[in-house]
């Protein structure tokens, strides 16, 4: 196991790369959900205005 983790002495390069990939995927997941949250907030405001008018 430790030999596998060492990646032939290049552990920092290999695991950093995979870590960055995971971070990229997670950021995209979070950002897509944030887009929808903002859209919902904006829409709710518009509806409130229309319903109030």
């Amino acid at each position, binding site marked *: 196991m430790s030999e*596998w983790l060492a*990646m*032939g*002495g*290049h552990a920092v*390069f*290999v695991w*950093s*790369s*995979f870590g*960055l*990939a995971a971070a*990229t*995927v997670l*950021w*995209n*997941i979070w*950002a*897509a*959900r944030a*887009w*929808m949250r*903002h*859209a*919902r907030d*904006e*829409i709710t405001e*518009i*509806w409130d205005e*229309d319903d109030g008018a």
Partner: protein
Amino acid sequence: MNWTWFHKLSSPPHFHRFARRWTPWMECAAAALVVYGLIGGLILAPPDYQQGEVYRIIYVHVPAAWLSLALYSGMAVAGLIVLIWRVKLAECALISIAPVGASFTALALATGMLWGKPTWGAYWVWDARLTSELVLLFLYLGVIALHGAMSEPRAAARAAALLAVVGWVNVPIVRYSVDWWNSLHQTSSITLLGKPTLDASMLWPLFGMALGLTLFSAANVMRRMQAENVRRNARQRWVREQLEAPHV
């Protein structure tokens, strides 16, 4: 050939239902393929006879690089549709693809640097491939910034579309830079017509990762498009019906 299904996709309510139905399945398939790619690439595939274990960075670098070009091409096609037919959903696509493409371009550059240090002895060299990929990142950021700089959504989308279409000239430059110029970066291990230079035990996990991340990106773009789509159609009745439905 009946193209109704394609035209229906440019209808905001129809797209919303389509995206809402298919994105979860795409994400599940993507997760399965990525898990397969990681197990195959990190555990089952043997070390490379020249580079040893460090070559395993290929399993994130190559899919990210492939996605940076594919997503830009998708964005340029959306840009063309915006400029020619002014389809609103194409505007949503253009705006949604840009950040996803930029993130994978940045990932391709970063993992390339991490691969370059142990392999070439340097994180960065002003090589044709690396430089043109960096220009690609700037183009993505330019599209995002240009769109963000204008308040009127439709004018902003047209300006961003123009930059996306014009900037597409850089995609073939990135792709063929290793053939046109004397480049430190290796030539393609996988070509459409030629026999791949990778062994099958290394190749199939790479396909798994590439297809998995492609499906993930497509689903992510569709989720962002859903948000932009409902935001732009806030006063339409279908939006109220869809958003007040149990699951969005």
